[in-house]
């Protein structure tokens, strides 16, 4: 077989089971592709020995005849996941040299299912960013370019390395995490599929915490079927995460019938933003028409508190981050600053954190500290949590009225150039998450599906938002949209 790296998970699974190829062959081709793709900055710690060993075991298991779907599938793992004995730095200097003594639940489940780890993937530092420009490793680069233009574009963030690697066929799929849009926005910027499951569907144990009430891991894949297959392997109750749901995990792939006749799709009027590019507007209208043609009923809905989602997020996420990141103190792991004569423990903390955290992380930790500080806790933090309750209530109401899923744009624009936002105020960067952040605040499942190209030849995505715990139905709606959109474009190889 040729072009093994271009295979989807489903294609590779079927080909390996038929004996047409082996995990060893696919893995070797991926490792070669990674070696040649340094210009993308996607992989930051390569693990070829582990990959080769895992592929060998997978091939034995596949020959045995009862291997799970993920067996032998080479993956990239976001640097946010703790992987035993392998650097896991959250793209931060403060975790320089940290090699965990334990394995995250998600990677444990993937490896138990026979998946192969090719290496760790670039990301924004502590998953704080929308362009992968806050990483200690340097930028990850989008394999897509504007037509006739060589400017390096962002793959989005924070799961920028994951998005770049999957879009460039360096791996068959990758893990991502999503706190405000960090799976769905990069997926949209790179023409791949990215899914954030319902809060609690996937264990957070062993994933470096950013904002614990918002963080969820999910799959970043080449299509919707792969998202279903990979999500299946990532999900499930974990006693080590008290917020992980003790609910049965349905067969997601079996739910992909493509039949959405009679389903009700809501179109929220508040997502029609001032100054939204015509192309996004058109993409959204086209997507709506596709779902209608597939037999869905389209209804206009209102989610009145949408406007307040970003400001609420920028209180809650930094507040939780300031608490979660308090553990980086130079005592137990990672970087410790060199101390001057007479420096005490406070100087050690302060210097270590000043050297170890990048500018955006420092900014968010301090904003979080401020909104939680005496005198401001009620005015900011508690008010944001009340607004969050109202945002969730908006969704509860439309779902109670019979809406099955909600269709929105995934991002307010196509991928922008690296460096383009450097001088912008931080709020401009935060606006990237305007369509995705509501989903985290309400704990809902959301999926970004590539549905078109803009005038400059860059991919654009639409987002579908589902009911809590109904990932199977959501994936099926996404599958119907994917079939109708027929998005097959790939970036032209320049790296």
């Amino acid at each position, binding site marked *: 077989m040729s072009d093994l790296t271009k295979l989807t998970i489903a294609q590779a699974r079927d080909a390996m089971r038929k004996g047409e190829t082996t995990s060893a062959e696919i893995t070797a081709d991926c490792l070669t592709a990674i070696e040649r793709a340094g210009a993308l900055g996607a992989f930051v710690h390569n693990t070829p020995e582990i990959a080769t060993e895992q592929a060998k075991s997978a091939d034995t298991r596949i020959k045995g005849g009862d291997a799970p779907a993920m067996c032998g599938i080479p993956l990239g793992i976001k640097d946010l996941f703790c992987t035993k004995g392998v650097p896991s730095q959250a793209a931060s200097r403060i975790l320089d040299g*940290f*090699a*965990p*003594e*334990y394995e995250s639940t998600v990677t444990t489940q993937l490896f138990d299912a026979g998946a192969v780890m090719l290496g760790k993937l670039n990301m924004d530092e502590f998953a704080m960013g929308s362009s992968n420009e806050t990483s200690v490793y340097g930028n990850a680069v989008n394999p897509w370019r504007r037509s006739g233009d060589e400017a390096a574009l962002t793959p989005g963030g924070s799961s920028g390395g994951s998005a770049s690697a999957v879009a460039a066929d360096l791996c068959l799929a990758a893990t991502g995490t999503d706190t405000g849009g960090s799976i769905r926005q990069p997926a949209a910027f790179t023409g791949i599929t990215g899914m954030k499951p319902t809060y609690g569907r996937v264990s957070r144990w062993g994933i470096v915490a950013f904002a614990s*009430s918002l963080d969820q891991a999910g799959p970043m894949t080449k299509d919707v079927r792969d998202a279903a297959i990979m999500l299946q392997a990532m999900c499930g109750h974990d*006693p080590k995460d*008290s*917020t992980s*749901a*003790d609910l049965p995990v349905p067969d997601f792939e079996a739910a992909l019938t493509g039949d959405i006749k009679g389903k009700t799709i809501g179109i929220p009027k508040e997502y029609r933003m001032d100054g939204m590019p015509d192309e996004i507007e058109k993409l959204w209208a086209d997507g709506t028409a596709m779902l209608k043609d597939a037999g869905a009923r389209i209804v206009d809905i209102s989610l009145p*508190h949408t*406007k*307040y989602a*970003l*400001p*609420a997020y*920028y*209180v809650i996420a930094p507040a939780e981050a300031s608490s979660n990141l*308090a553990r980086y103190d*130079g*005592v*137990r*792991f*990672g970087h*410790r600053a060199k101390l001057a004569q007479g*420096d*005490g*423990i*406070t*100087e*050690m*903390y*302060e210097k270590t*954190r*000043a050297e170890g955290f990048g500018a955006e992380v*420092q*900014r968010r*930790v*301090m*904003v979080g*500290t*401020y909104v939680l*500080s005496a005198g401001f806790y009620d005015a*900011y933090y*508690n*008010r*944001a*949590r*009340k607004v*969050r*309750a*109202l945002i*969730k209530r908006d969704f509860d109401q439309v779902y109670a009225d019979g809406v099955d899923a909600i269709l929105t744009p995934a991002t307010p624009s196509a991928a922008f150039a690296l460096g383009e936002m450097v001088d912008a105020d*931080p*709020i401009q960067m*935060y606006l990237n998450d305007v369509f995705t952040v509501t989903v985290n*605040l309400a*704990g809902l499942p959301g999926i970004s599906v590539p549905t078109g190209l803009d005038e400059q030849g860059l991919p654009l995505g639409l987002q579908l938002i589902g009911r*809590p715990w109904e990932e199977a139905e959501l994936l099926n709606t996404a599958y119907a949209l994917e079939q109708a959109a027929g998005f097959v474009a790939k970036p032209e190889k320049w790296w």
Partner: protein
Amino acid sequence: MSIDTETARRVAKLARIKVEDDALPALASEFNAILGFIEQLGEVDVDGVAPMTSVTPQRLKRRDDVVTDGHQQEAVLKNAPDAREGFFAVPKVVE
């Protein structure tokens, strides 16, 4: 609400992040931009709304109060920047 240099200094101190004096004005101005954005939340009528404590209505799982793990001193200390004689080592904290 406007944040001045003194408040920025206090927040940096609370967050245990060393910020040089000459960087404080820029920091204060960034805080002000972000807090200005957050101020919009003041427009929302939140009367009678309880602050969200859990996004899913589930009760947190409880486990039996028993020891399930332990005896991992070596693994716990493995990544420490300075570990001696089975302990984390830090600058002297008691005079």
